[in-house]
């Protein structure tokens, strides 16, 4: 499967699993989870430097941005303007154009699709490659693609809930409605759900709380690594048809 790479905005990634960098015990555990997950992209947040303690440990000391692609997000931005302003700083800080847009609402942190689409247009005009966190509404997902999204990232369930893939039918409709990569982001709780999402034909998975919030984050990172590979291979292999009744798997003739 080595040639089956994830390609976003012309960039190639070996792993279809993207992990977050929030909620870990510390950056060391985060780095170990990254190693176990085999990911080559992590989501990161943009925040003010702590002026009073400039020597606090920094993410870059544990996860090398040269070896691992940082995907700056706009978590905490509730308007398009904030999102654009945040990502312009992120671009200057990191020197790259690939970003994750998430404009959340105060309704269960669900993405605000109206503000998201508005922000996307500003960012695209500003030269960004934008991976967009969104709902599983296939119509809006298509609007995002038409506006230039580099990847469509519908939620599986409310962020951090671990409720799993709540609406596989909508994810299928989204998959069919767009041609850019579809990456399921937010809401997964355990590995098999990531496999199930990939089996629908999704191109990748983002997991943060499911891994960081497990009793053993390193083990769960390995589990997600294998689950994403399993789901991808199952999708490519093509599943057997479902049958309403049993069929023998051993020959019926020749018994003694």
């Amino acid at each position, binding site marked *: 499967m080595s040639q089956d790479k994830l390609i976003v905005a012309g960039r190639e990634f070996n792993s279809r699993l993207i992990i977050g960098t929030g909620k870990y015990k510390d950056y060391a555990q985060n780095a170990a989870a990254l190693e176990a997950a085999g990911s080559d992209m992590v*989501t*990161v947040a943009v925040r003010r*430097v702590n*002026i009073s303690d400039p020597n606090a440990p920094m993410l870059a000391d544990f996860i090398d941005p040269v070896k691992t692609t940082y995907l700056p997000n706009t978590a905490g931005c509730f308007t398009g303007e904030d999102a654009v302003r945040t990502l312009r700083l992120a671009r200057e800080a990191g020197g790259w154009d690939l970003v994750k847009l998430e404009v959340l609402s105060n309704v269960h942190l669900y993405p605000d699709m109206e503000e998201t689409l508005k922000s996307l247009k500003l960012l695209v005009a500003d030269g960004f490659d934008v991976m967009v966190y969104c709902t599983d509404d296939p119509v809006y997902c298509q609007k995002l693609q038409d506006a230039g999204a580099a990847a469509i990232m519908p939620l599986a369930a409310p962020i951090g809930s671990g409720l799993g893939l709540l609406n596989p039918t909508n994810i299928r409709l989204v998959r069919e409605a767009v041609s850019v990569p579809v990456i399921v982001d937010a809401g997964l709780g355990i590995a098999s759900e990531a496999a199930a999402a990939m089996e629908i034909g999704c191109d990748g998975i983002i997991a943060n709380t499911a891994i960081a919030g497990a009793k053993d984050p390193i083990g769960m990172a390995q589990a997600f690594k294998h689950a994403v590979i399993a789901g991808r291979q199952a999708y490519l292999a093509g599943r057997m048809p479902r049958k309403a009744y049993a069929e023998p798997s051993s020959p019926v003739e020749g018994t003694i």
Partner: protein
Amino acid sequence: MHLIINGKDYDDIPDGLTVTGLIGYLKLPERKIAIERNLAVVPKSSYDDLVLENHDELEIIHFIGGG
């Protein structure tokens, strides 16, 4: 001079500091940070030349863990 950095007031900043000067003055580690001055991103290329002015509003950010 007086600067507003990350939303806080700093009244005793030496006058005439460049961005590079300020980074040194604040002992910010030589790491990936970015600076916004009065709502405009400051290109790294201009850190040496850009002289900060009284009452400038600065945002100094970096990457931290996030989902």
